[in-house]
């Protein structure tokens, strides 16, 4: 099989992994070496689905001993199988990097023979890339569930970022769709990686100490393969951020690739709007000081398809509005629908120089479409309607979303 075919097969098999970020590391180049890492990350292209291409995202192999029902590479699927050699992968990475196609390598793999065997193949590749090819660019490696901790540690010394995918948001879902995987095989290495990262941050003050996963660890949850609610998913994410110190939780709208009685039919599209809402809520957890229980609860376990989660929250907390643009603290400005954290801090800086009028906000390009109902400027309200959830809902509801909705509602028929 030639390299072009292998690339086609093993990129195709890797594409359902959404993470492609190259941020969080600032590894510098060394004399005679090639590459460095840029702290904010760099996108190099955007594929036809609009997702960013930053890293060369490939599987080492798609030959798998597991038969997870949601996965395109499950052992019982009749698809073309291929494997790279470490040298092929190194050569591809370096040659793509020299042409500025990519920011680095994201190496994942199906499980061939055993988790340890697979992990060893991946480590051999990274060692070659770092030491023989003197590559100092970004490397993200997927840790194989069930691999020995010694191997996880070895991989972490070579990579910038590591991830272990949880995939299914509940143990019940895992049992139903991936019976060969144990929850403990996912959470144990996650905890192990967190401990080693903390250790390495403390040791970094000493000369000659090696850095371990400097860009932190991430994970991925599949949305819509099981019946888990948004509430369940968001609570899990919150727990992962606080307990395991994850940098990111990625969400992947389930693309039905296999026919199975326990899965949505292959004739349904991926629940893209739901994925979008969960991402918006994830942002609110990480940057806006929201807690999962503020956004959703047992009586309201899923996001409204027509409202972004912040609007949804604001309509249920109208007693906290309107807020005065010239007085409200930064944390409260960030809770106003339509005002992001960057705009909120611009407002705070600007009002130090002089009081802001409604016209000033327009000039500063604050998006007032939603915000106008939740603010006052120097005591004046510009919303034009009473602060009443029933009146505001139709003004705030996203009408364009209805089209996307149509494809999503029929998920479980």
């Amino acid at each position, binding site marked *: 099989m030639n390299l*072009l075919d292998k690339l086609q097969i093993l990129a195709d098999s890797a594409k359902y992994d959404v993470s492609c970020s190259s941020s969080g590391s600032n590894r510098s180049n060394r004399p005679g*070496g090639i590459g460095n890492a840029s702290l904010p990350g760099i996108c*190099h292209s955007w594929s036809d*689905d*609009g997702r960013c291409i930053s890293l060369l995202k490939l599987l080492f192999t798609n030959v798998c001993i597991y038969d997870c029902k949601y996965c395109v590479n499950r052992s019982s699927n009749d698809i073309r199988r291929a494997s790279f050699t470490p040298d092929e992968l190194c050569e591809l990475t370096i040659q793509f990097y020299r*042409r*500025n196609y990519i*920011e680095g390598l994201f190496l994942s793999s199906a499980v061939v023979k055993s988790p340890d065997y697979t992990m060893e193949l991946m480590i051999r590749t990274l060692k070659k890339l770092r030491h023989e090819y003197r590559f100092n660019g970004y490397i993200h490696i997927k840790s194989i569930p069930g691999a020995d901790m010694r191997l996880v540690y070895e991989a972490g010394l070579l990579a910038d970022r590591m991830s272990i995918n949880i995939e299914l948001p509940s143990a019940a879902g895992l049992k139903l769709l991936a019976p060969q995987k144990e929850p403990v095989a996912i959470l144990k290495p996650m905890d192990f990686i967190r401990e080693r990262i903390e250790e390495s941050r403390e040791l970094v003050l000493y000369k000659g100490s090696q850095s371990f996963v400097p860009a932190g660890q991430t994970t991925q949850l599949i949305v819509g393969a099981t019946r888990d609610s948004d509430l369940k998913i968001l609570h899990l994410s919150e727990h992962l951020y606080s307990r395991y110190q994850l940098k990111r939780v990625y969400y992947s709208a389930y693309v039905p690739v296999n026919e199975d009685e326990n899965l949505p039919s292959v004739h349904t599209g991926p629940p893209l709007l739901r994925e979008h809402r969960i991402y918006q809520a994830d942002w609110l957890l990480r940057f806006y000081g929201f807690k999962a229980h503020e956004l959703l609860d047992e009586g309201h376990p899923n996001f409204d398809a027509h409202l972004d989660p912040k609007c949804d929250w604001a309509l249920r907390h109208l007693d906290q509005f309107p807020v005065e643009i010239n007085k409200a603290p930064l944390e409260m400005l960030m809770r106003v629908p339509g005002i992001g954290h960057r705009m909120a801090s611009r407002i705070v*800086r600007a009002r130090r120089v002089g009081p802001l009028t409604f016209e000033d906000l327009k000039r*500063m390009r604050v998006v007032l479409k939603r915000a106008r109902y939740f603010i006052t400027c120097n005591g004046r309200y510009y919303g034009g309607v009473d602060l009443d959830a029933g009146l505001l809902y139709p003004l705030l509801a996203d009408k364009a979303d209805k089209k996307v909705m149509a494809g999503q509602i029929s998920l479980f028929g």
Partner: protein
Amino acid sequence: MIYVTDGSFEGILTAVFEAYSNKEEPDTITLGSDYQLSLGTEIREIATDAEKSDRVWRGIQSRISEKCLEDLYRAYLSEHHQAGLYIYRYVRLGLKLGRKVEGYLQHPDVQAIHDLSRRVASEVHLFLGLLRFRRLKNGIFYACYEPDSNITQLIAGHFAARLSDQPWIIHDKKRDVLALYNGVEVVFATGLPPIAEEACDEEYEALWKQYFKAIAIESRRNPKLQRSFMPARYWKNLAEKQL
């Protein structure tokens, strides 16, 4: 009153100096001699003067901030036809208000510089990713591009640090500005003889195109989203966007 400069950043700073010393308020500060003249407007030719521009430079540094200088320089690189005037007005306001001018975004003069500086900074970031090198027959890696702003000198350092073991050329075809790296240092040039662009690189370009195709999820196809991140005007220099 129109101030006509030679189009250099120093020229604009000299114009700022002249406006102060002549106690007049220019209506326009041109970037070069290509400008529109309407009947009856007065013209003042500004001779770029290192000492005068230095004094303005140092005045900005000490009375506003270092970051302000960077913002003004980026705004200048946008080549917006009013960039000279915006810079003058911003400096005038900044010398009065000091550092806090940077946050004074409700003021149109501050907003103007802020917008131009951001436009340039985001194009710089975009091209750190979108620039494409091809290996020429002589072993040099060559990248051509057509950015909206004059950003070649802002991106060259990044590639010198990253691709330090290969000789490369970055060529802004729109302005005929080149950055050349020989493995040791970067030199900027303009007006060089045309470069033979034949690459001996088809193999890796084909692999890259194959990868680009394979990585997209068909059921998530979203050309509008793709174009919003990667505007179509940049496509002609992107290998993956050529059939």
